[in-house]
């Protein structure tokens, strides 16, 4: 693989514009001072108590996600383009969902094959024909973006269900501002603090049309055992809304109420961080103890808004992803601003032929697989593995898609051996309200702390960075 694009030190070794001030500051700051601030940062995070439960790790039920103090910086120009692209993409996602659960024009136009929708486990038949308030499905999207060079950003995943991580965006900024006031003074950085206000405004704006002018919003969590519980309670606090579990809510005559010390109180908007399957035992999994019996009936009656809507998983599905450029064009009549990672669909003969010829360069995945099971990473595989996979692929081509291995950009990161480049991605959070789409300038930068690693997931040794958008 070619040397990855470094966001601070450009291809010719020159410091890129957005990082000039940081680079100067780093050269003036003795390494001991940086080490000292790193320790301070760790202490601060421990005091705040921001933790992340790692599934399958009995030793450490909850642990700190490593935080790297070197910020990741994007210029105002880079952000402006990304923002346009994100808004465009999320508009298209919402229109796609409206269509898929109503007229299905995109299927009739032959753009997406029917079976990809109807036989997809994340398509929710229960949502068919169901009106959702103001036609907004994805109120909160976390779009994962990677960069490969100076110009090109790719969307890796559209997280349209219950994306998490925004608490890190907010906490990282707070800690950085406390630790590096001098560095902040030397930059003009767009603020992220208004995220909670923007989110509350968006949530209130999508309340059912007939609810009061001061709609009640609640944040619904699966409970303390959920890996993102910290974030749920953090956000409820920032929003100034009640944090509720399923058992705190009750449905009566198609309206949703929460139990409070002053009796039952009507709820208009539920920012739910509970998966579809567990929302209502009378509609979905009957054994769910996390949901609210009858919630879907109140939803169907139009008396409550669920954010995100039920059934949005069909929009961020791996197989549907490959059609995103077509989806943007179909609904908006525009060329997509953000790129999709090129995807070869092995169900199509031309694509299959290409994939079979380039197996050693590609990542081949099962369409409905997850967790990396049944995947071929061409550049890392032995000849024998590739040949065995070739047979499998020929037998059942429709079960596979292939993608190139992307050279994710790197960013300078503190390591035991001093600053070194590490691969990063970015998850900005896109909010859709009744009339507008907003994005707080920034997002969550995840960094793969292991040298050479492209895996940024916090469950696999990834860390986070503060993300700066320069206000130019």
């Amino acid at each position, binding site marked *: 693989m070619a040397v990855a694009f470094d966001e601070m030190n450009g291809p010719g070794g020159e410091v890129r514009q957005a990082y000039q001030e940081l680079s100067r500051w780093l050269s003036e700051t003795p390494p001991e001072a940086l080490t000292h601030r790193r320790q301070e940062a760790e202490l601060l995070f421990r005091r705040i108590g921001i933790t992340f439960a790692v599934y399958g790790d009995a030793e450490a039920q909850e642990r700190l996600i490593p935080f790297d103090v070197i910020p990741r910086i994007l210029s105002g120009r880079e952000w402006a383009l990304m923002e346009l692209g994100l808004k465009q993409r999320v508009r298209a996602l919402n229109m796609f969902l409206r269509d898929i659960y109503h007229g299905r024009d995109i299927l009739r136009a032959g753009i997406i094959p029917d079976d990809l929708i109807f*036989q997809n486990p994340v398509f929710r*038949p229960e949502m068919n024909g169901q009106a959702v308030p103001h036609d907004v499905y994805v109120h909160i999207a976390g779009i994962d973006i990677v960069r490969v060079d100076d110009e090109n950003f790719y969307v890796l995943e559209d997280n349209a269900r219950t994306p998490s991580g925004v608490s890190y965006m907010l906490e990282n900024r707070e800690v950085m501002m406390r630790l590096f006031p001098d560095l902040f003074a030397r930059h003009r950085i767009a603020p992220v603090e208004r995220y909670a206000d923007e989110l509350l405004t968006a949530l209130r704006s999508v309340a059912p049309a007939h609810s009061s002018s001061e709609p009640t919003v609640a944040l619904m969590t699966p409970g303390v055992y959920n890996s993102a519980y910290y974030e749920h309670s953090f956000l409820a606090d920032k929003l100034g809304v009640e944090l509720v579990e399923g058992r705190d809510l009750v449905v009566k005559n*198609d309206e949703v109420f929460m139990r409070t010390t002053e009796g039952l109180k009507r709820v208009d908007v539920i920012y739910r961080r509970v998966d579809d399957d567990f929302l209502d035992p*009378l*509609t979905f999994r009957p054994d769910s103890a996390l949901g609210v019996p009858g919630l879907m009936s109140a939803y169907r*009656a139009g008396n409550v808004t669920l954010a995100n809507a039920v059934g949005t998983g069909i929009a961020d599905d791996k197989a549907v992803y490959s059609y995103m450029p077509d989806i943007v064009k179909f609904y908006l009549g525009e060329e997509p601003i953000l790129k999709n990672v090129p995807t070869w669909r092995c169900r199509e003969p031309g694509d299959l032929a290409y994939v079979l010829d380039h197996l050693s360069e590609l990542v081949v995945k099962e369409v409905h697989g997850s967790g990396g099971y049944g995947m071929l990473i061409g550049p890392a595989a032995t000849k024998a593995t590739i040949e065995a996979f070739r047979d499998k692929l020929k037998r059942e081509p429709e079960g596979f898609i292939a993608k190139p291995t992307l050279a994710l950009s790197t960013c300078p990161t503190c390591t035991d051996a001093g600053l070194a480049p590490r691969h990063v991605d970015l998850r900005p959070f896109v909010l859709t309200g009744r009339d507008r789409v907003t994005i707080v300038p920034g997002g969550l930068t995840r960094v793969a702390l292991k040298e050479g690693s492209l895996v940024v997931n916090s469950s696999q040794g990834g860390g986070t960075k503060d993300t700066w958008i320069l206000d130019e």
Partner: protein
Amino acid sequence: MRLRISHTTTYRYEPAATGVIQVLRLTPGSHDGQYVADWQIDVSADTKLDMHHDAFGNVTHVLTIGATEDLTITAEGLIETNDTGGVMRGTDERFPPQLFLRSTDLTEPSPAMATFTREIGGAEGDAISFLHALMTRLNDHMTFDSDPTHSGTTAAEAFTLRRGVCQDYAHVFIACARAGGIPARFVSGHFLRADGEVHQQAGHAWAEAYVPSLGWVGFDPANAICSTDAHARVAIGLDYLGAAPVRGTRYGGGLETLTVAVKVDQAGRQFQSQ
């Protein structure tokens, strides 16, 4: 035929429940071969029923009541039926047939069921012959027995037990039909028994499968017949859970006792005997 149907569900809660919420799919719709002449739902408690159509077109009623020791729901009425040889026309179709190829937890086929389906053969060619063969073989494979299974029993479990009730037969049929590439769905409803017994302990369940040349066709694997004018169709779904007469939750309370009484009689015959 004119079918006089009454379906009573009684719950007793000991001690009293503090609240109950239920989603009812107890109201049939009309289509070719089935005309609902008269239908009503009565609930023992004083409550308003909120009516919706679910995504599959079934009529649902949601009932919420406060503290209670018991609850009785009676659905009853008169349905006029014609024998269409099992072929369904004029039904409220909200999805293309291929949606009903989806598997669910209750209808996931086991390897043994896949083999059973393959051995019948011919699903790709003559769908109707395959479905008849499936119904006959399945009826031979299973023995009607209400003891070993319950509403949460999966098709694979019932297939292994070789025992079950009409719901289990329907689940196995659906799972095998889908494994053979034929869209299939669950039907809950009522059945006028051929032996003259009008009192039944539960509603009936069967399946519908999609045959391109005919459309949806009713198959009743527990009786090894296609649906006839003795069948009154109430709700459809991907499986039992999507078409269940009652799905509910109670708050508080301890022991819940459920009794179901169904009566299906020919209206004319009942009239003559009086």
